[in-house]
């Protein structure tokens, strides 16, 4: 490494890096990585011309890593994408200021695996936890079949090993547009609930035994006058919200299914109820003037507010207790997809103009360092709140049908587009995506996070793909640092 000749005194740690440069800045390196990647908490003098690559060399040198590993650097909760000098100029900082640079492992190029080839387009994907290590990946296709895959991951190896579990025909007549799943209190082998929105205006939710892949109970909700476009099960499973082309959001009561799931459903196992239970809407929320494209419950357990995105360029928040609209946020363009961050404080919407927009529900007054705090409590929205645009990612060239927050990682968003690209966005990197997976000749329609670093995509070629994000190991190659 070139740096070792320049900075011999850095050997042994603690001493400032004496680099013979005209303009230098003293920095603190902090990290949340394990101890083996931790450097001494002393100020270092680094040349301001260093960018990601140079800083990565410094860290590698300090740690004495062999082979070297690439790192990514955050200054003030923002990824460093330029040289330190340019960053300081852009933010009006002088070199007298001591920067605190946090470093993490850089994200490497995701490895893509084809899991399954399905005969029809995959419309939507959903996952649910079965046990601690296994997750169920359910894909809803346009042929009306939901296909199940078990993702089992051992403790040592974070990458799951997928195994096809089976297929369940939800509807033989209509195609599935959206699916959502819910598992009760995670009990081994207990049934889960799967909700599917159908093009023929029906909403079906089934209690499915994941082992045998057969439905135990079937519920049909008829109330939409047009195709249903989206479905979402609330965090406690008691409600199912759907939206569709009839511009309405309908909330279905799901308590009976939840109760039967809570009661020992094993007794019911084996004797599949042939008859389906028909439901009428618990209440219908009208207010959108155009198609409701996505509904989303916040993941916090006690959340009673429902978000819906529509073609009428608004995001609306509904109070599901009072069955009342809370407020309406304009969101600049017709939204295809809506996703609430795990902290419940931010929204991301996907638009047909190839953009992913991230909004702050709290009106933009984000207190510093709040990303980790109060992660579990849902943000209360009232009529006076406003939606503040925090980022706009112009990352896709075609329509973006879906963008989803990583429920396990508060900063990551996965977005897919008709141009066949999967982009991993980070809210701390304002412009560029962290990583890109580009697939030729297929439209990606849906993406779902299976685990913290694994997401699955489906699209027009019917191939279910697993994209595993991994920290780039091995040599720091020049390509990582533009």
């Amino acid at each position: 490494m070139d740096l070792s000749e320049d900075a011999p005194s850095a050997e042994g740690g603690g001493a400032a890096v004496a680099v013979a440069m005209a303009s230098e800045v003293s920095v603190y390196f902090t990290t949340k990585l394990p101890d083996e990647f931790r450097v001494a908490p002393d100020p270092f003098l680094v040349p301001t011309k260093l960018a990601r690559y140079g800083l990565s060399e410094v860290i590698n040198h300090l740690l004495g890593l062999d082979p070297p590993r690439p790192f990514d650097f955050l200054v003030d909760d923002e990824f460093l994408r330029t040289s330190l000098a340019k960053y300081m100029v852009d933010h009006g900082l002088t070199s007298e200021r001591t920067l605190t640079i946090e470093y993490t492992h850089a994200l490497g190029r995701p490895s893509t695996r084809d899991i399954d080839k399905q005969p029809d387009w995959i419309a939507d994907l959903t996952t649910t936890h079965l046990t601690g290590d296994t997750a169920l990946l359910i894909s809803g296709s346009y042929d009306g079949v939901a296909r199940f895959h078990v993702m089992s991951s051992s403790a040592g190896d974070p990458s799951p090993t997928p195994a096809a579990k089976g297929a369940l025909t939800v509807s033989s007549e209509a195609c599935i547009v959206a699916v959502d799943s819910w598992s009760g209190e995670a009990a081994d082998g207990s049934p889960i609930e799967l909700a599917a929105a159908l093009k023929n205006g029906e909403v079906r939710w089934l209690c499915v035994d994941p082992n045998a892949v057969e439905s135990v109970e079937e519920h049909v909700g008829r109330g939409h006058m047009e195709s249903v476009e989206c479905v979402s099960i609330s965090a406690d499973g008691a409600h199912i919200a759907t939206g569709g082309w009839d511009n309405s959001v309908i909330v279905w009561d799901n308590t009976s299914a939840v109760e039967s799931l809570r009661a020992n459903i094993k007794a019911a196992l084996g004797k599949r109820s042939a008859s389906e239970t028909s439901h009428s809407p618990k209440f219908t929320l009208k207010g959108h003037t155009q198609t409701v494209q996505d509904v989303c419950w916040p993941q916090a357990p006690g959340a009673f507010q429902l978000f819906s995105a529509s073609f009428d360029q608004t995001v609306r928040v509904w109070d599901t207790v009072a069955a009342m609209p809370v407020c309406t946020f304009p969101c600049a363009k017709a939204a295809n997809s809506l996703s609430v961050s795990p902290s419940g404080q931010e929204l991301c919407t996907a638009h047909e103009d190839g953009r992913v927009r991230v909004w702050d529900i709290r009106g933009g007054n984000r207190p510093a360092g709040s990303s980790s705090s109060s992660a579990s409590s849902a943000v209360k929205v009232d009529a006076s709140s406003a939606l503040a645009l925090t980022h706009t990612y112009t990352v896709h060239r075609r329509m973006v049908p879906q963008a989803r927050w990583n429920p396990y990682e508060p900063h990551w968003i996965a977005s897919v587009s008709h141009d066949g690209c999967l982009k991993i966005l980070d809210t701390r990197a304002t412009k560029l995506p962290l990583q890109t997976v580009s697939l030729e000749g297929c439209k990606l329609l849906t993406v779902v996070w299976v685990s913290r670093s694994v997401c699955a995509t489906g699209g027009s070629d019917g191939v279910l793909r697993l994209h595993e994000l991994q920290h780039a190991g091995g040599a720091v190659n020049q390509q990582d640092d533009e």
Partner: protein
Amino acid sequence: MSGRALKKRGILPRMTADTEAAADDNDEQAGEVLLNIDDPSDEEGGESDENEADDNAATGDFVMDNERDDVEYGRTELEEESDEDEDESEEEGSDEEEESDEDEDDAEEPSDKDEATQETDEPAAGEKPTKREKREKKFVEMSLKQMRQERRQREAAEQEEEGPLEGEQDDDNDEDEDSELYDSDDDADINRIGDVPLEWYDNFDHIGYTSEGEKVMKTLKASEVDALLAKADDPDHWKKIKDMKNQREITLTDTDIEVIRRIRAGKYPNPSFDPDDYYIPPMDYPDKIHPMRRDHPPKARFLPSKWEAKKIHRLVKLIREGKLRPPPPPEPEMYDIWGRNITQETDTPKGRVRGPPPMPAPKMPLPGHAESYNPPEEYFVTEEEKAQIEEDGDVGTVAQVKPRDGRQICLRRVPGYKKLILERFERCLDLYLCPRAIKQRMNIDPEALLPKLSSPADLRPFPLAVSVSYDGHSGMVRCASLSPCGQWVLTGGEDCTLRIWELKSGRAFQCITFKRKVTAASWNPRSSTDLPIVAVATEECLYLLTPTLPTYTITPASPPDAPSLPTEELMSMSAKAEEVLKLRKGEMADGEAGGEEDAEGSDGEGEGKAGEKREIKWEEVPRRSVLGKHGVRLKIIHEAVIHQLQWHQKGHYLAVVCPLSPAPSSQCVLHSITTQVSRRPFRKSKGGQIQRVSFHPSKPWFFAATRTAVRVYDLKSQQLLKTLVSGAKWISSMHVHRSGDHVVVGTYDRRLIWFDLDLSNKPYKVLRYHDRAVRQVALHGRYPLMASASDDGCVHLLQAKVFSDLMQNPLIIPLKKLQGGHTVRDDLGVLDAMWHPTQPWLLTAGADNSVLLWT
């Protein structure tokens, strides 16, 4: 004069003499003297030498006088001074002697003069002395003076040697005279009349005035006889010169004559002058420009230069190649008198160009005779004319030329003119305001008069880029249509397939293969509510079908509290459509029998016959057939290829256009879906083939576009309301604005024409943005957007804002050129375009088999 200056003169190659004396009266005499010199000098050379000493004083006089150019002055002064000084008698005596000399000279003169005239004609012939002569004369004077000085010095030296005994008085006299002469050198003429001709004094006995104002009397006798006598008396008469102006006689000394002789011989006037002293040896001056050497020039100077030859060769080559041309002839100088530059002073390379002088104010016409206070008789109205005026009452012609009866005898009787001040003031006002009126010309930038167009970025939303592509067609996509709800996309193309896609994902939900090319397809406007019917035209066949989409199978759930809904309410939409599309034979027959109507004004002639002859058959497609399984229900065969299918807004009527049909009445057919009746609205096609039709959105009007014009019919009263003349050659497409007051027409000759029905029958705007034929124009239902698809592969987006108030004209602003999506194939680009019903999205179908959604 210094000796050095004289020496300098001496080296001059040609001797000069001053000229001024030549202008004097005694020119002739001077000339005579000069002429006469030759002879005696030749003959009496020795004599002149001998006389030298005797004539000292006279010579000095002469020299001095000549130096001053005025011969007489010095002499007169001398006379005066001598008078004053001592011996009047002597002087008088000398005068007398001189006079006698003159007499002698005069006597001798004629013979000499004759000789002289014979010998040397030239100086005498020329009345005015030449320049050369004047110079010579001047030089002679100078030389004489110099010589005299030298001689005086010599004599002085001799006297010193010999002793001052002899002729002391004379010497003193000489010296005195000399000093006087030198003193009088600078004095002016005696005669102070100046340069005036002396003839002026011919009639007087004086010839001028002295400086004291005394007359200069004519003392010299100028008669020829006197001259002859003097010549005879005095052998030295030839030496005498008469100065007529100053009235004195000057005798040339021998020295003078010698000088003159030498000058005439081309020698130096001073014999002691040695020209060799003035030889300046050649020196090499460092800054010399002319060679001082006499070396032989080198050979190279006589040989043609190699480099010149090369240069000439190069120039010849350039000229032959045409690169070197003679300078163009200068352009004729043109003056744009109305241009701006002419009135301003501009600095051109040629110099300052001044504009024409300002235009003078027009003058008032001069008053004629009729306006005189006392006009002539013929300007009065005669009695006959008076009578005629009274008779005719026509005052104008006569009264204009004849003055009023206000004749005054004299000017002082003329009363004051009352309007004088007023008219003068108005005249002054006119003149004063005139330049101001010129200044007040329009000085407005024409751009400023144009309305300010807002930038396209402020007019968002409008489509910017391709968002969704619908892939699957294997032939040209001829038509594209969006369902009224905006969820489904209908396309048909030359691969004989009709496809229905989901808008958002681009997944094909239905694909129906026909036997022929799909030329037109259209959703029923009521598809989203109760009649999901699609009309498809495959060349001559029109099919009506209900798409088997899952959306349309939704059965409304009966609310539990109101179980008694009519069965129709509980039917799914596709079921309702099926009900409508069931073939009703009896009704069809009834409708056909009486359904033939003519908007052109029916004459009812042979209606039944014609109707039966061109019967439009509604056929049922068997349900078990391939098409029937896809929902195709009815089939209607037309006479020619169907170009357009246009639904009425309420979804009951379908207008079909087949321009190529042999019968003019079949070019446009109206089908009623609910009653299954077909009508031909036009018996004969006025204005050529019908290209496009459209329904008015609210009124019962019908727009039919022929190749060149759009005709507006009232369907109720069945008459032509308007004819919109497009000025284009071939209309390709038409779209009626949702307000119904505006019609947009695209033409194959690349134009986009906007008609405002409230304004006129002529186009409100003609836009020519496309490079190729315009295939389709489309107006958005909600947004003020307009799109035009063209064969150049581009779609142009325009803002077409229509104001609700009648005061403002529609505002059309170009927004964006959508390109890069479709490629031109076989000279065909974008074939169809349609706006999304609710979103600012545009669906386009291209000849490159692609269907794109622009957002």
